[in-house]
């Protein structure tokens, strides 16, 4: 009997054993790749990051409305500072996924096992540097959105099984970003390509990566100009190492019209048919030289029409902007009443499939350098010229040089912090987070409609009814200072989230806690002038 059981078991396990090796082979995923070259990851990392920033959510419903470049036509929750939780959760994690992919490129070029294979797609040091620069660019944008976020302990699940990354103080994070971007530019070997292919931003040009890295360092430095006395040193270092020299060096990501590789702004409007946005009145009025009569504000060069207005919105000769966030419902009526051009019916260049989204322009750098040089007229004028050239070039349009010269002359009557800030604000079109950052840092443009100010006038049969800009969330009278930490973190990274929230003003996860570099004491406090 024992023998019998033995034979039966052995027999049956033989059947099973035969298929054992088959079983292992069977569990190799035929649907997803397990080995991918580093340049393919860089390619996806760049596009993933751009797709999730320059889109109808992170940009159009968030930083572009906070900076009053765009405005929602119907539903105005975000314009009135109430973010949608699911979207806030999504941006947050998707942007970290972007960081992680750049980190993967770094790791593949550092690890002994994969280093050699990766060098076939560009010098290891250059790939590492380019990915580090992108990480710094992205992390800076993220921290300027939420405040202190996990960085030193983030992305360490695979290496150290870190499930709960602590939130870094924003000050420490900035210091780390300065350190990393310095490291990155210093390791670049300009005689070798950064990537043999796959790099959409600079097409593998190591020198341009280096210039971008140094320019980005200038951006970080200027953000800290009121809180870190070393900011000038950082700019000096960057200038010595080499910054952008012309629009040709600008960091931008150009989309394609083949297949579905088009820009997400286009997708939002014409694939999802969310005809929800129009140019904001604040931006449109600044461009038109129209002063804010509702709140009795001045315009530094009233009546001067900015040549970029032909690029930024539908060129209907009226260039009317959409009011800043009235109540849902009234907004739609204002759209018709104020004769705002429909971007859906007449597509402005920004909604082209192949729009090149700006990571950082040469003009922005010029304005930073100019501020570093004490708001110099020369840097200012070069910056304005570069900006106009850049935007006309991006849209593939040409301009009348005399008109532009006249414009530059008109806006150079009084070159000061305000003029600088307004020109930078205009240049930062669709670069919402940076534009919002500069408003928070400098308090300019004054024309930004603050809570409590009149944002629109609604005509009725019985006369005109003024509307006051009334946020849905507590912002203490100023524009939104930050975006709330996402609720996901309160469940998936609870202790860290709680510790981070405790450090915010009043210890709550609010919209009014300021960035560490935002040291204004009121909306109209202009530290940039001091």
């Amino acid at each position: 009997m024992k023998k019998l059981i033995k034979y039966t078991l052995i027999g049956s396990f033989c059947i099973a054993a035969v298929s054992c090796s088959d079983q292992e082979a069977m569990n190799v995923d035929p649907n997803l790749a397990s080995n991918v070259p580093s340049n393919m990851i860089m390619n996806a990392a760049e596009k993933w990051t751009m797709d999730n920033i320059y889109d109808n959510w992170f940009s159009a419903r968030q930083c572009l409305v906070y900076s009053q470049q765009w405005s929602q036509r119907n539903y105005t929750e975000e314009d009135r500072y109430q973010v949608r939780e699911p979207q806030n959760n999504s941006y947050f994690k998707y942007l970290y996924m972007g960081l992680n992919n750049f980190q993967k490129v770094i790791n593949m070029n550092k690890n002994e096992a994969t280093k050699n294979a990766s060098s076939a797609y560009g010098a290891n040091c250059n790939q590492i540097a380019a990915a580090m620069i992108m990480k710094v660019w992205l992390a800076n944008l993220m921290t300027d959105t939420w405040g202190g976020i996990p960085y030193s302990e983030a992305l360490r699940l695979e290496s150290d099984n870190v499930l709960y990354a602590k939130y870094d103080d924003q000050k420490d994070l900035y210091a780390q970003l300065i350190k990393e971007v310095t490291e990155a530019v210093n390791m670049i070997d300009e005689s070798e390509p950064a990537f043999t292919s796959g790099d959409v931003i600079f097409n593998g040009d190591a020198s341009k990566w280096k210039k971008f890295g140094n320019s980005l360092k200038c951006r970080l430095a200027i953000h800290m100009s009121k809180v870190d006395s070393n900011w000038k040193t950082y700019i000096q270092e960057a200038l010595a190492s080499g910054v952008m020299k012309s629009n040709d060096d600008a960091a931008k990501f150009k989309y394609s019209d083949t297949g579905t590789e088009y820009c997400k702004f286009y997708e939002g409007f014409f694939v999802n048919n969310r005809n929800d946005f129009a140019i904001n009145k604040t931006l449109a009025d600044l461009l038109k030289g129209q002063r804010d009569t509702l709140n009795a504000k001045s315009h530094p060069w009233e009546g001067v029409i900015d040549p970029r207005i032909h690029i930024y919105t539908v060129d209907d000769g009226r260039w009317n902007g959409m009011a800043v966030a009235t109540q849902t419902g009234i907004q739609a009526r204002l759209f018709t009443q104020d004769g705002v051009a429909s971007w859906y019916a007449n597509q402005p260049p920004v909604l082209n499939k192949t729009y090149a989204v700006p990571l950082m322009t040469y003009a922005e750098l010029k304005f930073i350098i100019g501020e570093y040089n004490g708001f110099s007229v020369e840097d200012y004028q070069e910056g304005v010229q570069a900006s106009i050239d850049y935007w006309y070039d991006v849209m593939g349009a040409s301009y009348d040089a005399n008109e532009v010269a006249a414009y530059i002359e008109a806006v150079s009557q009084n070159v000061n912090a305000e003029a600088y800030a307004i020109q930078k604000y205009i240049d930062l079109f669709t670069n919402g987070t940076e534009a919002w950052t500069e408003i928070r840092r400098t308090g300019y443009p004054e024309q930004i409609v603050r809570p409590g100010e009149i944002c629109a006038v609604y005509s009725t049969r019985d006369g005109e009814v003024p509307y006051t800009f009334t946020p849905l969330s507590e912002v203490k009278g100023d524009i939104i200072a930050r975006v709330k930490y996402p609720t996901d973190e309160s469940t998936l990274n609870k202790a860290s989230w709680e510790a981070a929230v405790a450090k915010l003003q009043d210890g709550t996860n609010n919209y009014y806690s300021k960035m560490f570099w935002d040291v204004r004491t009121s909306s109209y406090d202009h530290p940039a002038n001091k």
Partner: protein
Amino acid sequence: MMKRLTMFFAGLLLCTSAALAQTKVTGTVISQDDGQPIIGAAVKVVGTTTGMLTDVNGRFDVTLPAGKDQLEITYLGFITQVVQAKNGMRIFLKSDAQALDEVVVTAMGISREKKALGYAVSEVNGEDLIKSRGGLNNPVNALQGKVAGLQITSAGGSMGGSSKVLIRGNNSLSGSNQPLFVIDGVPIEGRDYNTTDTQRGAGGYDYGNLIQDINPDDIESVSVLKGAAASALYGSRASNGVIMITTKKAQRQQGLGVEFSSTLGIERVSKLPKLQSEYGGGYGYMSLDGYDDFGEIEINGKAYITPNYGMDESWGPKLDGRQVLSWYDLAKWEANGKKGDPTTSPWSASNHDYEDFFETGVSFTNNVAISQVYDNSAFRISYTNTSLDGYLPNSSMYKNIFNVNGNIMSPDKKLNVFTNVNYFNSRTKGRPDTGYGKNNIMRTFVQWNQRQLNMNELKDMYRYPDGTQATWNRIDAEDPTPAYHNNPYWSRYMNYENDTRNRIYGNVGVSYQIMPQLKAQYKVNLDFFVDKQYERIAVGSQDESRYSEMSRQQYEINHEFMLMYNQTFNDFSLSANLGANIMKNHYEYVYGETKGGLAIPEFYNLDNSMTQAASSNYRREKSINSLFGDVTLGWKNMLYLEATLRGDQSSTLPKDNNTYVYPSVTGSFIFSELLKDKMPWLSFGKIRLGFAQVGNDTDPYQLYNTFTQYTNIDGATPGYRLSDTMQNPDLKPERTNSWEVGLEMNLFKNRLGFDITYYQTNTKDEILPLSVSGTTGYLYKYVNSGEIENKGIEIGIHATPVKTRDFEWYTQLNIAHNKNKVKSLADGVDYFRIASARFKVEIGAMVGEEYGVIMGTDYVYDENGNKMVDENGLYMATDGSQVIGHIFPDFTGGWNNTFRFKNFDLGFQFDFSKGGQYFSTTYMWGMYCGMLEETAANNVRETGIICDGYTEDGVPNTTVVAARDYSENFYSGPAAQNVLKSDYIKLREVSIGYTFKLNPAWFIKSLRLSAYGRNLAVWGPDTKHFDPEMIVTGSGNIQGVEGGATPMVSTYGLTVNLKF
């Protein structure tokens, strides 16, 4: 080897002693009940130890020693007989009703006497499943309320939609909790392939779970194996219980047996949210200042007032009857080339409101079954077709189901070849879009709409003469382009889906009776289907036009080998089975969709794509090799002990951890055997006890990290990104331990009885994709972690309060209570997200809570438990997410009644469910948009409303807020406001029938007429707008989120059954 085996089993036989050869007699033992031969009955010569068992033909031949001529024939469940031996005799055994000899089909298709089982098994008769067909929704719904602890929830109005089936609670945090469905030994794919978006209320079609492909007309009986002990032999996939379906087989009768049945069914929408009819479309803010939403337009020099059709809310002007230029007036005028003056219409409540959108659904079901039994073979062939014109415009469903089963035996009847094959075919058109889908008409009707709209007008003008769309939600009076919403008729007639499924499932097998006690059997079981789905968005819709095709196929083959041994001797009975199974599952799909819109309207082909159509494919394979065995020992029909052992080797686990073995032990004690003389009123009494362990693997491809193809923006260098999930090469199998104890008693000649079971199940080391903080760079990580516990009690009570020759009333009540607790997750993790809803909340599992919590913002309460109100007079919401509801009920059950009066029969059933909540997106937007009755009740739009709560200063709130601000706070304020109770009591079914008893010699031997109604009424605390069951849009773990549910329908029908 076979010889050894034979010797081994032979050695176990007691009665083999040779005796002096005298007289030889042969005979056959037959069951008096069905005339079938009884295999394995013990034939013993009285006064000797000589005996044997009957063969497959029920035959025996025995040699009588001198002077002995009495034979004692015993067989479990039958009354023992002693007869005078005669050559060629036929002995009819009477079944022993007292002994409750019910035979049930248990794991691996093994028939067992119910009394011997050490675990709970519930049986439902096939007839009960077709009494009230419940439309074509899902045949498995017929089991609702019939079995204690079997919980089935289904959206009644979703044609062919999913049913959530759950036995004894959720054992798995992230894996399947659906029981395994087995039809005649064939494991059947029962899951759904709905997208996560569909399940979480974000839109998409509910294609239903595949278990709906069974044909209730072919079902003889259903056994529900509830616990792990009952299903241990089935292995991993049965850890959530097993629903075993036995199909009808040929019945022994004179000549050819023909049965025919035909049902006419009607379905009507029975519950719709209650909406206000006092105010029309618009924003309404201005009305506080005396202004309204109307605009003005000048046509041919005349001024008209036009409603604000660009807006999809109903905060507009009071429906006071004034003349306006409606969208319909405009559309007619435009359709007519803008000639002349447009007509105008009164601004008044619609006399064809949204209930008029729904039609009366009509279905026909016909079944014919032919069977015949021959000496050495038997066959049954059945065909069913059903057709349904659904209650939604342009919806239909057709099904054809063939079933053939039969067997052929060798002349000596030792060799038996058998087969059972089902072919299933369905064609469906126009399933409802669900949740926040753009073509979900319920989203438009209840969430975002203008209340004055007239269905007749919408139907009349959904297309302009040039074929483009006309919709009420036009951008403005001058621009008829759809703003957010399609005309609901456009959604139904232009943007519809259709799908087909072809499926074959069944088996072929051979068995050989090696000895009367020992049988060997080999079977191959196959389940194969091809599923095709075609979805379209027409040119001119609000969305970009598109067309997609999904072609999905799967096969699963199970090779199963078994040795079955049965022996009875003296007071003992022994049965043992040894088996091996090789399972292989292969799944794949190919998917294509147009990009950039369709070039030519109404031409639905992937080539008709503006830019290159996109395609994708997916393939998944899995195999499990298994060995299993069980031994059951019985003593004096009173004590039984069963033990099983199974070992699996799965392809989905790492090589070092891929084999796992697990046992079960159960026992039962029929104490009534001891007491039958002292307590004659105790007809039957049994105590059962069981323990079982089940191991489990996971889905394929969870061991090694991968990259996902993301972009082709650089023609030469495709972009790949890290996949969302971090895999884990160190996974090990999951374990489920469960035990159960039960008491079953029947009193007063079975007129009253009950069955109580208490169970506890703990699942450990579950393999789950843990949601991780985005800061890790991933969304999920696979881990072995956590423990989830289910404890519960199931009670079944049945009684026959009245029983006379002409009248009988049978009543049965079942109640089940399940208490679930998530005991732990991974180290340091206390929350696991199952899914996020489309807008506000998420569904998850939290340590210390029941599985399935709704997480969202809650009201803020002060120390005294009062809701707090902010300075604007609106409810405050908590900062982060909190537990604001539990999705699964505490108690479920059903109360069934059957009355028989002469040839009439009447039955009705109530179901109930207590405990559990759901988040209603419809409620949230229905309030936000001024749709629901509450937004206009008690004149709140004129007088405003005061939130019942306390301010931060600790005084009662007195701030009056506008009705619109109050209502909008359902979205912007605490999510908890939209959490509703899912408690209900439901009149599930009523049926009445009359059976004509005809002369068996006539051509028509039997005729029955019956009528039924299903889902007739519902009661509950939150059933004003909804039926809590209607929220189901998937059979998986994502439950508890309502997103624009299709309405509940009641079905009614008439059935004729004929036997020839």
